[in-house]
């Protein structure tokens, strides 16, 4: 819950505060809980609402509308990675293949420095993308649960997830390639 609250507020202390507030909200509202939503999504809706309010008060949250004009069709992989569309045989195919990660040991993937790379990449995401990847991939929620809590459409959720994952992958790719941990995929 603290991790989720931190999407919206600046620091861990405030996030803890917000979690506390949210629990209070849950207790106060329990009588009104109609059981239409799963208890989990209801609790998290309260948490997100409180965290957003707090974030806005602290001027941390950028209004989501500010991001909405980001072009959804903008490619998620650097176009330089592909051969030009007028290439006689391999138009828009990889110019250099992505490398293989299968030789990277699990301990390396979950090492403090890799996790740091992931966290930084997630922190740099637009807020709506950060929300979705946090709930889906870090918290392991289903798309239906995420749509429910964030009040967004399934297709929108998927686009946000797609863009978020692509950016985190890119960060990991540069990190592994720099460290020479990946190997050629041919």
């Amino acid at each position, binding site marked *: 819950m*603290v*991790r989720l609250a931190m999407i919206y507020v600046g620091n*861990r202390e405030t996030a*803890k505060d917000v*979690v*506390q507030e949210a*629990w*209070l909200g849950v*207790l*106060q509202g329990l009588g009104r809980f109609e059981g239409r939503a799963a208890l989990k999504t209801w609790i998290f809706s309260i948490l997100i609402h409180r965290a957003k309010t707090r974030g806005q008060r602290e001027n941390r949250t950028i209004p989501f509308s500010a991001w909405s004009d980001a072009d959804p069709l903008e*490619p*998620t*992989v650097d*176009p330089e990675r*592909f051969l030009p569309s007028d290439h006689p045989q391999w*138009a*828009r*195919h*990889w110019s250099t*293949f*992505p*490398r*293989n*990660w*299968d030789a*990277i040991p699990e301990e390396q*993937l*979950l090492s403090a420095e*890799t*996790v740091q790379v*992931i966290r930084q990449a997630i922190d740099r995401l637009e807020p709506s993308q950060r929300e979705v*990847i946090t709930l889906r*991939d*870090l918290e*392991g929620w289903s*798309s239906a649960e995420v749509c429910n809590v964030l009040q967004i459409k399934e297709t929108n959720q*998927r686009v946000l*997830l*797609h863009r978020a*994952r*692509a950016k*985190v*992958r890119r960060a*990991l*790719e540069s990190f592994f390639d720099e460290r020479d941990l990946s190997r050629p*995929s*041919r």
Partner: protein
Amino acid sequence: MDKMKTGELACQELVELITEYLEGTLVPNERVRFEQHLTTCAGCRAYLEQMRRMIRTLGAITEEEIPEDALEQPLQTFRGWKHDQK
């Protein structure tokens, strides 16, 4: 993206369909094209595997600091709330 296109996918198209593929939301026709491309393209197979490995990794990251009072906090909130109710 044109869903009714036929013929071989380009790698640059495949990477933009990858989330739909993983979510299982590609229409059957697109799914076939996606998988056909994979059978012949080591680069896209590597890309897909990177994605899968990354997603597994994200799921395995735990909150960096589980406070020792993780349960104590809601309990205290509850006690305070009960007290206020009286």
